[in-house]
């Protein structure tokens, strides 16, 4: 079975004060090993909400999420944390690097959370940074790097532990078009090496790097 993640009838409703605001109306989705899926759609259509549910950061109001065949929608916080630390790599729009740690330390931290410790973690982190062409920027703090370089560190952090799945939430949203294209290509290269990726984006140029484009509107998938 090649399936990595499967969503069945996913619904998510947020409660704002006393008002219930539906974000997902019932989403069914299966992502298989080696996929590179881009989720596109207008703002507020539920793209990020879906990504958070697939990334075990949140639980659905209704429906189920299966990760590697296991239902994660009812798991406790510790179990979800363990899945995130070992099996899912995250890439965020605002990079979300630890400002006090340099590039190598940021990657090493993720590896330590995934259970890879000591010299091995350092070696793997260095290899990951080499892969994203930041071999000469390892000791730099995030504030000493450009936006594109920061996102490359975030990508190195995500891929270093060799996760089952990478989730990228608007990875080029804070970059200029040139850097955006470069990051999109980098993700496509990793996918070509066998890495499964789900990416949320507004940018159709970036989405074209994916093998599959999933369009969402009003909390539902309209096209896949």
């Amino acid at each position, binding site marked *: 079975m090649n399936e990595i993640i499967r969503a069945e009838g996913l619904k998510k409703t947020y409660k704002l004060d006393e008002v219930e605001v539906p974000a997902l109306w019932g989403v069914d989705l299966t992502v298989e090993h080696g996929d590179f899926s881009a989720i596109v759609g207008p703002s507020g259509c539920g793209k990020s909400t879906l990504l958070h549910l697939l990334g075990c950061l949140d639980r659905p109001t209704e429906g189920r999420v299966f990760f590697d065949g296991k239902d994660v929608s009812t798991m406790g916080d510790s179990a979800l*944390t363990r899945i995130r630390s070992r099996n899912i790599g*995250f890439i965020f729009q605002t990079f979300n690097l*630890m400002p*006090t740690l340099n590039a190598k330390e940021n990657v090493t931290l993720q590896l330590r959370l995934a259970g890879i410790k000591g010299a091995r973690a350092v070696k793997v982190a260095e290899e990951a940074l080499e892969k994203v062409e930041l071999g000469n920027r390892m000791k730099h703090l995030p504030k000493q790097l450009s936006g594109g370089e920061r996102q490359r560190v975030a990508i190195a952090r995500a891929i270093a532990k060799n996760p089952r799945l990478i989730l990228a939430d608007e990875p080029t949203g804070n970059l200029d078009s040139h850097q955006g294209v470069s990051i999109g290509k980098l993700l496509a290269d990793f996918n070509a090496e066998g890495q499964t990726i789900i990416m949320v984006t507004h940018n159709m140029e970036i989405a074209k790097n994916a093998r599959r484009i999933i369009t969402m509107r009003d909390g539902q998938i309209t096209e896949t």
Partner: protein
Amino acid sequence: MIDIAWKNMWTRKTRTILTILGIAVALELVIMMTTIVDFTERSMQSELAKYSGAGQIYVRSQAISGIAGQEFPPVNSILREEEGRKIIEEVSGDIDTALTTPLLFYQLAPPPYPSSPPEALLVGVEADKIYAYINEESVVKAGVIAFSDASAREVILGPMASRFFGNPEVGEDIEIVGEPLRVVGLVEGSELEDRLTANVVLIPIRTAQSILGQSQSISAVLLTSTRLDTIGSLAENIRLNHPKVTVLTQEDIAENLDTILGQTRFFFNMINYTVYIIAAVVILIVMIMAVSERTKEIGTLRAIGASRWLVLRTILLEAVLLGLIGSILSIPIAFVIDVAIGYGLREIVDPWSLTQTLITVVVLSGLAAIIPAYRATRINPIEALRYE
């Protein structure tokens, strides 16, 4: 996670330095207070040891209140000299007259801290009975064993009193209550250990009465019994014959010193507890700010797989590190201040009590950070990822 905690502190240098300094100063205060209590206790114990077997009885005016009755030496007591001499005469058969004298006390400089003896205390004794008040073990420089006459303008200074008067040499004149007196002796001893003799400004009682304008009055009578086993009955007889006076035996003095010590300890402990609370509140505020500032970082940590327990540990560790560094830094600060004020407290700092204080602050730092650390664990990673 100590590296993350350390880097968080290192990156926010100003806040870290100010917090550490705050803790260091607070703890330095605790060390000073604890040391003062320790040395007060030691000096009192030392004083009590000297009285042991000395067979001394103090007769003073009746205490108006309980607190005044505990006062020792009885600086605020006033007796008619006539009554004092009558008491000495009545018990003359049972006392060593060479070590018996009326006393006149006058505070020349206030106590350096509450419940302590005055920094300089004028003590008038009969001219040939200086060793009734100064313990014989104390050595008087220049070999003086008595003042030259009953009204001699002469003075013997204890070590603390000597410092108060600018460390005069034997033969120099000093001014006391506007009158010049010649220094004829200096009591050797420790300023810290010899509680009753360190501050003494010993002069003939006639001279004291003259310069203080109290020709008919004294503060107390110091009697030294020839037999230790009859002190109780001797004191009882004086009480029966003179119901308006208070008679203090060694036991009473010991009890009074103990009460004073208890009050001193209570006073300083209250300061210490307050300082501990301030240190804990400083840590609490700093860590609440730290968690609030780092909402996005903590949320990211949670998102990429840090457990709640790990977040809790990191925050607690940072607080404990702040407390630990502040504590360690407080020791040299305390010593520098000590050298500056010249009390020599560092010589009597008890390593065990110092260790206890350091441990208390470190533990308090951890405890103070529990609430902010718990709040950090409740940060929702999704909310934090949106946080700018």
